[in-house]
């Protein structure tokens, strides 16, 4: 299978008053086309930071010090880290898009769902929308009788002009200027009608009941599950190659969580999108992921097939994490001793060594490298 994205030696630091936070330390992994890659880790392990670098939205005081993220675009690969603003704009939405954890914070409370989904659609598939609108105008023009409806004809020809300009260039200055003049604003109203059809179509695909009503409501009028569906609709509006889902179900009720997971699975089948699924819930990983990346304190500690991770975990952290989750079947619980290290002064050597039951001298002295132990099973531990 072809690699769709490749992260190599990513180093991310945050320069704070308390010191330099070493958030990511030489993170490397690859994503294959069409797979769902689960990224597991606790708070502060760097899962979300990795996701944000994919979109180039790490804000100061954060800074990517080293490494590359190469994403496949057609036949070539684009390096997100080195990309300029213009390239990043094209990458976002079209190549990579993201579903955030808290749907109520990802949506703008003062715009309706229609406006927000429409904005995402317009930003990327405006050509389709404009050419469809042009087709409609041409149809109406040909239906008009000669010598009658002169005013209507003039209006339609005017619209046609505007759409042709927009079709050539979405940022057309003249069209933007016209949209501010009250009498000539009418082309916007038409536009809204056209986009609304696209939005409703998209909302239907998200299994939203009564999409007409949802399209014209504000986020606060919707339940958490519906809001998350809208966020997913925005993320998928431009059919991205890579979708990053950052804990998309953590803020939802269990019954709704199951529905959203079903939806993401269905959409993946329909759209063929590659998904990076970030979560701290191993139960969700078991349901969704094909391969799993386990992160701890800014390091990748283990990468393997999902079945392999659950059946034959190698890294002591993965083992401990698997034992620590409450399961319905048993009553036993084995908590992991200790706490996540402070990343301003991370422990020497292996960052897990203060909590590791198998620790020996080498772990304190030397940082373990990620090595392939079995085919497709990588682990960063001195035990292997």
């Amino acid at each position: 299978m072809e690699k769709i994205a490749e992260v190599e030696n990513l180093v991310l630091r945050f320069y704070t008053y308390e010191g330099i936070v070493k958030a990511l330390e030489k993170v490397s992994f690859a994503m294959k086309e069409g797979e769902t890659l689960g990224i597991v880790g606790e708070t502060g392990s760097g899962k979300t930071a990795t996701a944000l670098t994919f979109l180039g939205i790490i804000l100061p005081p954060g800074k990517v010090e080293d490494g590359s993220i190469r994403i496949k675009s057609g036949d070539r690969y684009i390096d997100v880290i080195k990309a300029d603003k213009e390239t990043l704009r094209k990458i976002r939405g079209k190549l990579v898009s993201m579903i955030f954890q808290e749907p109520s914070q990802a949506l703008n409370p003062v715009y309706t769902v229609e406006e927000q989904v429409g904005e995402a659609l317009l930003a990327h598939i405006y050509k389709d929308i404009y050419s469809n609108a042009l087709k409609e105008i041409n149809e109406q023009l040909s239906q008009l009788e000669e010598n009658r409806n002169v005013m209507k004809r003039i209006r339609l020809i005017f619209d046609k002009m505007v759409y042709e300009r927009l079709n050539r260039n979405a940022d057309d200055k003249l069209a933007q200027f016209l949209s501010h003049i009250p009498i000539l604003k009418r082309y916007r109203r038409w536009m809204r009608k056209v986009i609304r059809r696209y939005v409703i179509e998209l909302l239907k695909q998200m299994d939203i009941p009564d999409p007409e009503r949802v399209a014209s409501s504000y986020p606060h009028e919707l339940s958490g599950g519906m809001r998350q569906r809208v966020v997913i609709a925005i993320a998928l509006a431009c059919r991205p190659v890579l979708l990053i889902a950052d804990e998309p179900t953590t803020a939802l009720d269990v019954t709704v969580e199951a529905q959203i997971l079903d939806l993401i699975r269905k959409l993946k089948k329909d759209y063929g999108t590659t998904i990076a699924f970030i979560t701290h819930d191993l139960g969700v990983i078991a349901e969704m992921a094909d391969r799993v990346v386990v992160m701890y304190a800014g390091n990748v500690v283990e990468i393997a097939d999902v079945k392999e991770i659950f059946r034959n975990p190698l890294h002591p952290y993965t083992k401990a994490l698997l034992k620590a989750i409450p399961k319905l079947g048993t009553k036993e619980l084995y908590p992991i001793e200790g706490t996540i290290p402070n990343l301003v002064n991370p422990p020497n050597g292996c960052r897990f060594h203060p909590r590791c039951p198998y620790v020996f001298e080498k772990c304190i002295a030397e940082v373990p490298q990620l090595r392939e132990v079995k085919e497709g099973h990588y682990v960063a531990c001195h035990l292997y």
Partner: protein
Amino acid sequence: MEKIVELRNVSMFFRSRSGLLKSIVVKAVDGVSLYVGKAETLALVGESGSGKTTVAKLSLRLLKPTGGRIIFEGVDITYTPEKELRWFRRKAQAVFQDPYSSINPYMTIRQIVEEPLILHKVEGDKVGIVEEALEAVRLIPAEEYLDKYPHMHSGGQRQRVGIARALVLKPIYIAADEPVSMIDASSRAEILYLLRELQEKRGISFLYITHDMATARHFSDRIAVMHLGKIVEIAESNDIVNNPLHPYTQALIEAVPDPNPANRFRERKTVSGEPLNPANPPEGCRFHPRCPYVMDICRLNDPELKEIKKGHYVACHLY
């Protein structure tokens, strides 16, 4: 079993403004009866909007119920004025969901844990009592934590501070409102472990509120399932997990993601639809719009809580 807290047919209605003059009544809790026995944990499970937190607040008498009785250690405290409730406030404590907003960021950990002692005018070696509470929640060595601020700690450690604050007055009853839902997977196990240990050592009764069946089963002796302000099933926790009777309970158990990739293609009986709006509950059984086994009678009559087996109560027309 000796009952520590008992709610008898308690209801809590809220008035919610809608429009300028109109107001609607939201029946957050509607005729709930339950008790928490001595040194027992009762888990209250349900989705958001089912009224779990309102029940917890009622059991702590933070709200005055619209109807029904609240009994604590055999004393009716339903309408007791706040001034005469001091003894109760000392014996009943709460642990909250969000360790980031339930402790004051401007206070040191010592001040946070000491505050209940000051409010209840406890004499003696306050620092000693605070240290003892911190050690009980395994913030060891306690002296190191005393003068630190909450932001210096992780979510799990902050939640321990919250638990220490609840413990410092040596209560006999603690209502824990989703104490682990905002905490990471690895610390979650530790907090649950800690709560269980405290219960075994000190014989504290817990009302444990959660939406997660898996953690409820780990920590509790009995489980009560709530849906839209009513209890739909109560039983021993093993009994309820292995043999759930109410369709809603079955759905909640099915919805827990199974950490075993071999089961991924197994068809799950998840309920369709969103949690319903408690301001506008449906006629008849409140679960019927989402129930896969809905019958005609469900649309007409609200089922009563019946004892099906010994200690296993369910409110459903199927039984």
